[in-house]
Structure formats: C-alpha cells, structure tokens
C-alpha cells in the first residue's frame, strides 16, 4: 500500500478504536450497544491489517489470541446470566444490580456488563473470520 494509506491509517485507527469503545459503553443511553460497537471494534483492527499487510503482523499468533478472547468472553456472558440463579428471585437472566436513575452512565443494573462482554465477543469473532480468510489465501499462494 502507498505512503498516503499508511499514514492515514496510523492517524485514524486509534480514533476508530476509541469511538467503538464509546458506542459499547453508552449502549444503554444512546443508540448502539454491544453488537454495533463490536463490529466497529473489529473494523479498526481490520483496517490496520489491510493497510500494512502481513509483514508487520504475525498472523497466526494474532488468530490464536483472538480465538482465546472470543471464547473467554462468551464464557463470561453465560456466567453472568447464570448468576441470576443465586440472587433473590432465582430466575435465569435476573437484573440484580441496583438500577439507579434513568439517564446516568452508571445505571441499568447488569446491562452495561452484558454490553461490554458481548462487544468483545462479536469483535473477536469477526476478526477471527477475516484472519482465517487471509491466512488461507496467503498459504496457498506460496
């Protein structure tokens, strides 16, 4: 890729990452949430890999890292939803943290935690799919 693409990607990728974290964390106040923020988070990593190629990044190590994050995140989501069985009414998916006032950042019980971990899981899934395709194409062109 040319110098313009590389310089622009260096300047922008950090801001896209921060914007994705903003969408995930404010999921219970403004439109967005875990799924939209997760896909944008994957997009920032895909931008870096597309601009700089596979010379700068060890792709197989990146792929093993992203599969580990994905499986850990889905495990935490299941554990959070099972934890409703231990509190109070003993119902699956109970919203048991204090709810606070509507419209503040720290409110809505367990919903921001759900948003964060579902966001990490979606981002790692899409990054793994993309890396599997790139590794397949590279290993066959050798």
């Amino acid at each position, binding site marked *: 890729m040319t110098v313009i693409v590389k310089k622009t990607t260096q300047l922008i990728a950090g801001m896209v990452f921060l914007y994705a974290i903003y969408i995930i964390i404010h999921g*219970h106040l*403004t439109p967005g949430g875990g799924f939209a923020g997760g*896909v944008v988070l994957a997009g920032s990593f895909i931008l870096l890999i597309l601009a700089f190629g596979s010379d700068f990044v060890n792709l197989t190590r990146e792929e093993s890292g992203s599969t580990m994050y994905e499986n850990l995140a889905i495990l935490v989501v*299941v554990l959070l939803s099972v934890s409703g069985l231990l509190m109070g009414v003993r119902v699956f998916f109970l919203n048991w943290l204090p709810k606070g006032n*509507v419209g503040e950042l720290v409110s*809505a*019980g367990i919903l921001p935690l759900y948003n964060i971990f579902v966001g990490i899981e979606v981002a790692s899934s899409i990054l793994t*799919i993309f890396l*599997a395709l790139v590794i397949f194409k590279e290993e066959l062109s050798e």
Partner: protein
Amino acid sequence: MCRFDNYVADYDINKRSLMEIAISIITGLMIVGALYAIHAKDLLSAVIACGIVGYGLVICFLLLKAPDLAIVQIVVETITLIIMVAVVLDSSRDEPYTRPDTQGYISIATSILILVVLFYFFKISIESLDAFGAGSLRMAGPYIEGAAEKTGSANLVTGVVFDFRGYDTLGEATVLVTAVLGVLTILRIKGKK
C-alpha cells in the same frame, strides 16, 4: 376542540403518505440494484451492486425511526462487502454469458411459475394486514410503559434485547461462535505438521 382533532388527523395522514412515497422510491431503487446484480457480466460489478441494496436499507431504517438498526446495518454491510471482494478478486472475475440451454429454460419456467403463485397468495394475505403505520401490535403497550423503570435503561431497544429477551441474545452469540468454528474447520490446510 373538534377542529383541532381534524387538523391533527389530516397532518398525520399527509405525513404517512409522504413516508410511504419516500420508502417506496428507495425500495424501487433497491429492486433495480438487485436486478442488475443478478444479470451483471462482471462479478465485481455484481458484488458492488449488492452493496446498493444494503446501503439503501440503511436509509430506509433511518426513515422508519430506528437508529440502532441503521448503525448495525451499515457496519455489517461494509464487512460483508470486504469479505466478498476478497473472495472475488482472487479468482476469475468474468462470468461467460452462455445462452440458456434446455435445462436453463426449464429452470426459468419453473421459477416464473413459483413466483406467480407466491405473489397471488401474498396479495390475498396483505388484505388482512392493518394499514401502514397504524401501530396495532398487541405487545407494544406492555413493553413500552414502565420499561425505563423496570430495566433502568434509557434506550428501550437495549432494554428489550438484553433484559426482556435475553435468551435470544444468548442464542445469537452462540450462533456467531458456531459460525467461527465452522469457518476455522473449512479453511484448515491439511498436513501442516
């Protein structure tokens, strides 16, 4: 008071027909884009024309007052286009346009028959739907009133997705993990070690 009621009703009906006209125009553009994507001679043009349908859907979601869906659809459509272009650019891009032989004519005739039958049945069934925008779904009221206090979130769609309908979200996350497992299994190179 009655005069104001008439005025409000007229205003609503005018806005409803304006919204119908806008969504109809954009859906018409989506149909033209889909028809071109099916008949294109170059595979890269077909993939880009598939992007017309996706991005037109984003405008429709914004007109229908659904900003959550618009954000998700625009980023998902971009990722889908990246994956499709990565598949097409690495292989032969042209589709040789051959005249349809006997089997091709049979499949075109079968498809036109199925399309006509399905269209007739659909025309019968939309007579029983309410008018566009009447808003007569039964569970809308119990979900909206008191939802902000019951779940504590200001965004009602997030409250419905993660609190009232948590099982669907768990199922969706499981489907994503399964799809990643499937992709990793299909694209494995044998005999590496």
